[in-house]
């Protein structure tokens, strides 16, 4: 029951619009590229310095000079352009990317996001996540609703923040929440995954949220 990883990615793909420039994080967000509707033009940005990339290369055609931000070998397409990482983050920070889809450890009801460190554990670094959530026009988090029965949708993040008031939407295996990060209107449950119930969501969510009338 509830949504699988692929179904969460498929739901996230509904946020794509024709002509969008999109940055996808590692993990479930990467799967979103499998669900770009036919006929829709979406250019994927890779923050190391590439706009417009295609699927993984055929075996034997991997190019060490051609990788995405997850350090995976990818391919060039007709629309591809390359640029430096400074130019890439100018593009991100300057608000030129329409949509960022990424994972999270915690999201708070005001849009705060934590996804880069757990105090006391070895920290790998934030990579480009802080720049993406600060700069991209719309930020969608895709994550499991809870981790080891601990809620991840919180009143306040307990982990160090990746960004303060940055998340617009959270897609979990149980449903979809909208967050009015700018207006301060808080969090609203706007969709339920098939098989999930309002009670289940209520029980697994620490954050306060309204429920859309449609549900």
């Amino acid at each position, binding site marked *: 029951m509830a949504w699988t990883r692929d179904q969460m990615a498929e739901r996230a793909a509904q946020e794509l619009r024709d002509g969008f420039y999109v940055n996808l994080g590692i993990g479930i967000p990467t799967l979103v590229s499998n669900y770009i509707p036919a006929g829709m033009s979406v250019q994927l940005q890779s*923050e190391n310095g590439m706009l417009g990339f295609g699927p993984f290369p055929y075996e034997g055609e991997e190019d*060490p000079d051609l990788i995405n931000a997850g350090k995976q*070998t*990818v391919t060039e397409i007709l629309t591809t352009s390359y640029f430096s990482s400074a130019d890439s983050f100018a593009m991100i920070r300057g608000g030129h990317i329409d949509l960022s889809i990424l994972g999270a450890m915690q999201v708070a009801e005001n849009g705060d996001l934590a996804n880069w460190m757990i105090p006391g554990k070895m920290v790998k*670094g934030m990579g480009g996540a802080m720049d993406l959530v600060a700069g991209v026009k719309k930020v969608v988090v895709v994550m499991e609703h809870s981790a080891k029965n601990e809620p991840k949708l919180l009143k306040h993040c307990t982990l160090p923040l990746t960004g303060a008031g940055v998340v617009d939407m959270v897609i979990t295996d149980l449903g979809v929440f909208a967050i009015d990060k700018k207006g301060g209107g808080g969090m609203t449950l706007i969709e339920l995954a098939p098989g999930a119930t309002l009670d289940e969501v209520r029980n697994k969510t620490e954050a306060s949220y309204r429920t859309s009338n449609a549900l």
Partner: protein
Amino acid sequence: MLIMAGGFGLCGVPEQLILAIRDSGVKNLTVVSNNCGIDGVGLGLLLDTKQIKKMVSSYVGENKTFAQQYLAGELEIEFNPQGTLAERIRAGGAGIPAFFTRTGAGTQIAEGKEQRQIDGGLYVMERGLVADLSIVHAWMGDTEGNLVYRKTARNFNPMMATAGKVTVAEIEHLVQPGDINPDHIITPGVYVKRLVHVPNAVKHIEQRTVRKRTAAPAGTGEEV
């Protein structure tokens, strides 16, 4: 001594120049680089020899030696958001000592730094970075020092080339002035003090992801 080393992951890394630094035996290095190689490759080589005192990076997750030395207190790390790191280097090369960015505002990254409201948003002041030595990897260079990069191997190399008091470039293809179309030059020769020709550069792939010829999915989903 502060060294900037180009590359993202193992892509566009000045491997031969890292070897030269290893062989020089210089110690107590502060190294600015987005990552720190992997065990035994790239900057990982300078961890093995304990030449690095401190890293300034955005992500160092692929390196066990790194974790060991860090946990043993032998290695310092300063995390910078990747875009902030890129811009700090660009600023250093461009004579900009400080700039404001939204990245990291209201987070731990802003602690100890000036934060201010500008036009209704909260911004952090970040400082430009200049290196004693920058080492970069380029695809092609002429004897004037004009450089071009190939695909995503460009990454941090162009900014680092501008931000080194001395910049040394290793190049895969050495050509004569005039051989590169001047509209295509990414790093003008003024930034490059030394060139090393590395005609048979060994390149590493960190995450080899491919699709089979028989199945051709539309997206980038299938991992092998």
